[in-house]
């Protein structure tokens, strides 16, 4: 029983990290059909923000609280720059944005390597996150509980934003029909920029969270980007609810298969399951009903 609980928790924890990395991606992907490979590097930028803030401030607890909003701003600004300079002119070529942003990610990675060095660095855990917490009589790391809670807060905040505010209404309108939204007086350009700011900012937040469970290196982004994309694809592009289900599912599957085999075999099995799943539902778990072709 204890093994089961700790396994389920490990799966949900992995899922929450994946979700945190993927939720911003899902937003930008769904909004503009832009596939941002540099999203992983925005995560890395967030992680290095946490590292730098801690070097400056010293105290682990305070710096965590400072770096969360700061990383959001930094990630968001990077995204804004990317959107304004490159992606804006490429909305009709979604596949090409994938390769252009890959170029951006190469540059950002090398930039990190030149500034912070290739070896990985560590961010110290605050006191209150370093010990275990008892859940149903099973000890689990407090840092992972923190990430789980952070993810819930972020996702809940994002869905509130999308469903209740006027910005959210505009975003949803542009996602569903860009032309019609423009015709009803919504500035799709400003909406796009804001969406990209929020989505990329969430990557920065994810980066801070990831420093709590592992070390930070220039290639941090590449470890998460592929899995994050899988979450978005399996969940249904642009669907927050789908991303939540997919992230939890992928996390649980990965951990359970790892239990029986090795991490590498589990990864391959999970990929096969995703491909098989797309056979049944090519549009992902949650799909908007349309009468469009394909």
């Amino acid at each position: 029983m204890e093994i089961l609980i700790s396994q389920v928790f490990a799966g949900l924890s992995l899922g929450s990290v994946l979700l945190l990395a993927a939720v911003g991606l899902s937003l930008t992907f769904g909004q503009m059909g832009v596939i941002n490979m540099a999203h992983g590097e925005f995560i890395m930028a967030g992680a290095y923000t946490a590292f730098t803030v801690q070097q400056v401030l010293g105290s682990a607890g305070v710096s965590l609280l400072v770096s969360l909003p700061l990383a959001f701003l930094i990630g968001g600004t990077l995204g804004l720059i990317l959107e304004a300079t490159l992606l804006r002119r490429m909305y009709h070529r979604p596949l090409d944005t994938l390769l252009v942003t890959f170029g951006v990610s190469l540059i950002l990675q090398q930039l990190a390597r030149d500034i912070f060095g290739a070896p990985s660095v560590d961010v110290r855990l605050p006191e209150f996150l370093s010990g275990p917490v008892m859940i149903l009589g099973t000890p689990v790391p407090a840092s992972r509980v923190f990430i789980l809670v952070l993810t819930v807060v972020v996702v809940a905040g994002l869905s509130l934003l999308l469903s209740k505010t006027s910005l959210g209404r505009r975003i949803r309108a542009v996602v569903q029909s860009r032309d019609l939204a423009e015709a009803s007086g919504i500035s799709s350009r400003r909406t796009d920029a804001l969406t990209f700011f929020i989505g990329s900012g969430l990557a920065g937040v994810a980066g801070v969270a990831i420093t709590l469970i592992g070390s930070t290196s220039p290639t941090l982004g590449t470890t998460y980007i592929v899995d994050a994309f899988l979450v978005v694809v399996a969940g249904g592009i642009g669907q927050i609810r789908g991303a939540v289900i997919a992230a939890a599912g992928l996390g649980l599957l990965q951990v359970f298969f790892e239990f029986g085999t090795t991490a590498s075999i589990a990864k391959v099995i999970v990929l096969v399951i995703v491909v098989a799943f797309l056979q049944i539902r090519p549009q992902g778990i949650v799909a908007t009903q349309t009468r469009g072709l394909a």
Partner: protein
Amino acid sequence: MTTTVSPQQTTTTPPTTGSAELPSVAEGAGVWTTGPRGALLGLGIGAVLLLVIAPLTLGGFGLDLLGRYLCVAMVAVGIGLAWGRGGMLTMGQGVYFGLGAYIMAMHMTLADTTLEGETIPTFMRQNGVEQLPELWGIVQHPVVAVAAVILVPTGVAGLLGWAIFSRRVKGAYFAILSQALAAAFAVLIIGQPVLTNGSNGLSNFHSLFGWDLSDQANRTVLFLVVAAVLLVMLAVTWQLYRSRFGELLVAVRDQEERVRFLGYDPALIKTVAYMIAALFAAIGGALFVPVVGIISPADIGVVPSIAFLIGVAIGGRSTWLGPVLGSIAVSFAGTQLASAFPSFWVYLQGLLFILVIGFLPGGLASVLGLVRRRRSQGANDDGGQAAGSTTAPVSSEQEATR
């Protein structure tokens, strides 16, 4: 390019945008060649350069380096077919390259082991393996190994391609799946050190099919084989591009739904193109191993898989010779710059991706095309026939594709 990201977009995108994004196929084709005579000329020049001049002028080291570029260029030919002509952005060609390379490397390692009078390779003995794993035993015979290089990657590509394309998973979804495939494959190879020697990869080969690889004469022959294989691939793609299949493939790229409504099966067409691309990549990988002497997961993961694309994009993804020339140029620049200025080379690669794909999607070939069109326009204007400028290139295009 019907890159349908979400169903909503299909309904909003006017049907003509797809064809307007890329320079028309024929435009590219017309740049490098004009009809069969031009193709023969191109192949002939390539053959003379690679089969006569290169072996005579380059030393052993230079020849090895060029051979390596040619092996990578084989992957590029396949990507040109799948991506440039078929619109399938395959970001996982490293998988097929790796399959071919590892099958070949396993066979060569086994052959060397047998020559040394052992039954199992050294790295396995160091891992405490007593008996040769069955997976390795299969490729012991050279004929089986060569057959496996051809059949395994095409089989994998066929199964996967059919599964994906028949469910109309395309565009970004396909790109991401292929990328995940590359990631999973590299993880799988690293995670099985007993079978694959993990992240160290397989290296230290002494012979190929009984030929001593340290003998320079044999190495020259090996280079000639590599060059000949690449030329054959080019001839095959040229024929494919002219064929009905080639035209259907482009039609699927530009307007998949229309092709379906005309009664063709786009999934079949795409799967076949994807299998050919996989085969070319696998052959490139299999030849890469004896030429370069090492294969490791660093050559086949996500990043190298995407790196294959840049040369194709620079040369002109939908052209016939563009992918090969671009790929060779990028490999050359890579070896020249990467050792001297490693960090500059990475920045340059990133910039190339941004500039070429963001601002010059047709690659360098489209620049030539633009220049040519401008010139012909000028000539027509002089003759007072501005209207002729738009029709003149079209007729030469049609000549080129038929």
